[in-house]
C-alpha cells in the first residue's frame, strides 16, 4: 500500500464524498481506491458517518414551553395561538 499517497489524499476525501472535486483529482482518487482497501474503508465509513448524522437529526421543533417563553420575551403574546395552523402546514 502506498502510504504516501493515502496521506496525500486525506484532505480531499471530504470534498470527494460531496462530489466537489475537480475531475482530475476525483479520477486520481478513483484510481487509488481501486488498489487501496484502507482508503476504501475510510471513504465508506466517512460516508456512513455523515449519513447517520443526517438521518438521526431531530426535526426542527421548539418545545411548547420554550416557544411560549420566546414569544413572551419578544412581546408577541398575541401570536402564540397560531401554532395549530402552522403545525398543520409543516411538511
Amino acid at each position: 500500500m502506498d502510504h504516501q499517497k493515502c496521506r496525500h489524499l486525506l484532505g480531499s476525501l471530504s470534498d470527494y464524498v460531496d462530489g466537489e472535486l475537480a475531475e482530475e483529482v476525483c479520477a486520481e482518487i478513483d484510481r487509488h481506491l481501486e488498489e487501496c482497501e484502507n482508503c476504501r474503508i475510510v471513504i465508506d465509513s466517512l460516508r456512513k458517518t455523515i449519513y447517520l448524522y443526517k438521518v438521526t437529526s431531530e426535526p426542527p421543533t421548539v418545545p411548547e414551553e420554550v416557544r411560549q417563553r420566546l414569544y413572551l420575551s419578544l412581546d408577541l403574546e398575541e401570536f402564540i395561538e397560531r401554532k395549530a395552523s402552522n403545525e398543520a402546514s409543516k411538511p
Partner: protein
Amino acid sequence: MNQEKRVEEFSLEALRAGDKAEFARLVEAYSGVMYRLALKMVEDPQDAEDVLQETFIKAYRALPNFDGRSSLSTWLYRIATNEALMALRRRKSASVGQTISIEEPAPNEDYEQEPIQIVDWCCLPEAEMMSAEARAYMEKAIETLSPALRTVFLLRDIEGLSTQETAEVLNVSEVVVKTRLSRARMRLRELLSEYFGERAARRSAAEGEGL
C-alpha cells in the same frame, strides 16, 4: 433538509418597518431550526433557550437595517451562531477560568489527522446504528469537536447549508469552510469507527461461533 430551502415569502418592507405580525411569522418559521442549532452548539437546554431568545431579540432590533444582501435565513443563522459562540465563551471562561479561542480550531485540529481506525463497520444493521445508545454516543462525539469545527459541521451537515452559505454565516472563506468540515467529519468518522467497529467485530465473532 427542506426547511432551509423554503421560499422566503416574507415582506422585507413590513419586517423593516417593525410589523409585529410579519415578525411573528418569521419567528414561527425559523425558531425550530435556530433552536436545534443552538442546542447542538451549546449542549444545554437553558443556554440554548437564551440563545434562541437573544437571536430573535437582536434580529428584531437589526431588521430596520437589514440590507437584503444575504438571505433572511443566512442572516438569522449568523446571529444565532454568534450568540451560541458567545454563550460557549461565557460558560467556558467561567468554568475553566482560561481564555480559549473559539473562532479557531483547537491546536490538535490544526492538521489533517491520519485515520487510525480502519475498520469496516458499514455491515452493521441500521437499527443497531440508530439505537438510543448509539445516538447518545454520536451526540457526545460532536461535543468533542472544537466550537469552530462543530459550527461548520452543524451548519453544513445537519442544517444543510451550502458551502457558500456557511462561509457567509461565519464570515470566512469557502476554503476555510471546506477545511474545517473535512476535519470535523474525519474526527467524527474516527470516533464512530471506534464505537461501531467494536460492535461489528463482536457481531462477526458471534456469527463465527454460530451464535
